[in-house]
């Protein structure tokens, strides 16, 4: 749902971010990650590599984990985007946040938003994943601090919490 705005060279983009409608006029070349960080001010989405390798910029676009450094903002027009800022449920931790905290699944915190969002998408599809399935699901993302083992545990912890309440 993009349309040319009155400002030359820009397009109006309307997206739903964390349940809220947001609109802005953007350059066609503006990357989604910059739109999220600069235009919307949601700085929980990070940039780590510029080449779609590290996944620090991962957000959910219509529920699908997407590296927002490799998508233009205009391509996201009309979609529903979830960023880390949208994870809290009624002011309380989403099970994935509780899991990461409980299992020491984060150290510097830079990869954490992307890791959590990919995990949320995995658990929506597969509520009872094996460790190997978790490792495969997050294999598009790099963590330099934890060695992944505690991230796998964190996702299992979240899965158990979600199974209990579902």
């Amino acid at each position: 749902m993009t349309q040319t705005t009155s400002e030359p060279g820009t397009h109006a983009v309307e997206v739903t971010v964390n349940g809220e409608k947001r609109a802005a006029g953007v350059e066609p070349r503006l990357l989604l990650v910059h739109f999220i960080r600069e235009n919307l001010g949601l700085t929980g989405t990070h940039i780590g590599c510029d080449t779609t390798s590290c996944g620090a910029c991962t957000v959910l676009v219509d529920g699908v984990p997407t590296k927002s450094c490799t998508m233009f903002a205009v391509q996201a027009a009309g979609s529903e985007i979830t960023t880390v800022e949208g994870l809290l449920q009624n002011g309380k931790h989403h099970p994935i946040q509780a899991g990461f905290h409980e299992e020491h699944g984060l150290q510097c915190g830079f990869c954490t938003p992307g890791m959590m969002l990919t995990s949320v998408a995995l658990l929506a599809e597969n509520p009872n994943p094996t460790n190997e399935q978790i490792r495969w699901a997050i294999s598009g993302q790099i963590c330099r601090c934890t060695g992944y083992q505690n991230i796998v545990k964190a996702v299992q912890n979240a899965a158990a919490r979600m199974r209990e309440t579902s």
Partner: protein
Amino acid sequence: MSTEVRGLGHSVKRKEDERFLRGKGTYVDDIKLPGMLHMELLRSPFAHARIKSVDTSRAAALPGVVAVVTGELMAQHSLAWMPTLSGDTQAVLATDKVRFQGQEVAAVVAESAYIAKDALELIDVDYAPLPAVTSPERAQAPDAPLIRDEKEGQTDNHIFHWEAGDKEATERAFAEADRVVTLDTHYPRCHPSPLECCGCVADINPATGKATIYMTSQAPHAHRTLFAIVAGLPEHMIRIVSPDIGGGFGNKVPIYPGYVVATAASLLLGRPVKWIEDRTGNLISTGFARDYHMHGELALKGDRIVGLRTSLESDEGAFYADAQPSKFRAGLFHIVTGSYDIPAAHVVADGYYTNKAPGGVAYRCSFRVTEASYLIERLVDVAAHEVGIDPAELRLKNFIKPEQFPYHSATGFVYDSGDYPKAMNLALEKLGYAELRKEQAKAREEGRLLGIGLASFTEVVGAGPGKDYDIAGLRMFDSAELRVHPTGKAILKLGVRSQGQGHETTFAQIVAEEIGIPYEDVEVQEGDTDNTPYGLGTYASRSTPVAGAATAVISRKLREKAREIAAHLLECAPDDLEWETDRFFVKGAPERSKTIQDVAFAAYTNLPEGMEAGLEGVHYYDPPNMTYPFGTYAVVVEVDRGTGQWKPLRVVAVDDCGVRINPMIVEGQIMGGLTEGYAIAAMELITFDEDGNCIGSNFMDYLIPTAWETPEFELGETVTPSPHHPIGAKGVGESATVGSPAAYVNAVVDALAHAGVRTFEMPVTPDKVWQALSEAGLAE
């Protein structure tokens, strides 16, 4: 051990998690100031070239560009060059020549980062390419081009010569040996690559003159002093703020040209300037690690190691910018005797300029300890295979014995404490070593190649005693300031800076242990130089050994003042009181007690006559010695005879880092290090073609393991407290990166050792293994 206050030994969950879980951390790139401009750097495409001209006119004319900065402009402000941490100089923006690919040549400051990047394309630089020097060997060739031709008196590419140990005694040991084993190996250039690149926001207030620089800094106080020296700004008008840091691993220790140019730009333009490096910039221009070409020799008498001799050539890049104590030109490489009682040792190191990025930092390591640990642990394995003795047995026979501590090493270290056989035996037991050796033999008969690799490392961390350790002249103490408020809550301010290590939790636990304030009630503050006591920063596993000690000491000092106040409240003599967990009580009358909270309130409301009000203080801790963490890592791999791929089947790590403050966080550090160790052994490589083009300039070429490749880890621990550290802790953040690469490589070599294979060069990629399989007639 205390319980309610959650002091030492409790795996409490981290206090710092909450903001990161909500996406509310504040990393440098998250900082947005009113009127802020954006800066991008133009980098050299050549490794070595003379700059004939730089034409910025087209870039400057682009709408939205505010300024284009060149080396010439920087030179007008005497800022074209800056000092390095190793006493050399480094170009901020190139003027005469470029000396490595990726070197900073010009900068654009614009209203947006996109415009700034557009403008970079419009800067016309005329280069005259020169031959590139890409190894120490080529740097020494008689016809090698002189890289540092601007340095007075520099006639070749040699930087330093350094020696440690006793040459004559070592020669005698070798003369008397009945066997000498040698190993020549290159610890390749790799890169710490924290997930967050480097960057800053420089904000010089034109009205007040105050320079506030938000930067990715592992050492904000040292950086403030260096900024004062480099930029000529008065130090009290500089405030460095190191906000949340997305990993450091040594990469955020040096001062980079981008910080300096952004600061100069803010000063000249009167507006805040943000510079955020991209990944390629990070990989090709900032602090790399290792790049040591090493030759090692062990002298043996039977199964006893009687001497060690090693020489190395260090590939330093275009500017000598190692971040290490000034007295030690090869860092702490002379810890190379490792865990072994070797009576004689001699180390020779030479450094060379090459046309590569500068800034030899210790990638998750204490000043070149990783290279040393790798060399000795590889050499011992080569010796075991040559002598025909089990590598575990050879290690156990040659370990420094527990009763020999404090142990004086042949190269001058005094190891504080250790029990190497205990850690090794635990690792072997967890692994089921004897059984595994049988399984390996059986597998071999069936045509499968299993390998078992061991490494029994000793680190030297916690720099360091002021008499021997300084960075650019600054002694390597560290500090802690504790303020206990009237209601018993406290703020602890430190001179170090966490990059994910969990200081906000562990240092609060030290306070809890020592003065009884629950860890939840202690806020830990770091990173803002206006607001914290001076310290040298977080790297080289020094936070717990040095700032942790400072925290314990200041807590104890305040507890002694608290005793006086408690005595006043309980109307008894201070000596009549005993301390337990969080309170003083009267000896023999435990019901007469005052908690630390009671005392804190009294410190502001009801003091003994003549006592100074308040309950706060600062301590600067000069460690009496380094600490020496150790352990044994054991790796089992299987090698695919068809492809040369190798896969770790098991990784057992037994660490002894002295007393553990928060075991959960300690284990997190170890697993992170084991992964980076695996990365270095298996895939991480910064290399260059003969023209000096960097191969490994993005995450598609510079390979980092994901969850898919990374093995599972099995951890174990022994605890041998440091006798000189107030709480017996030794530091643990880097043990696994230091110790584990040799274990992985030893395992792959071990899988092929029966066919005469003795070594592989890191990274041990499948093509190298397949080549060896093929030569040994083992390839399928």
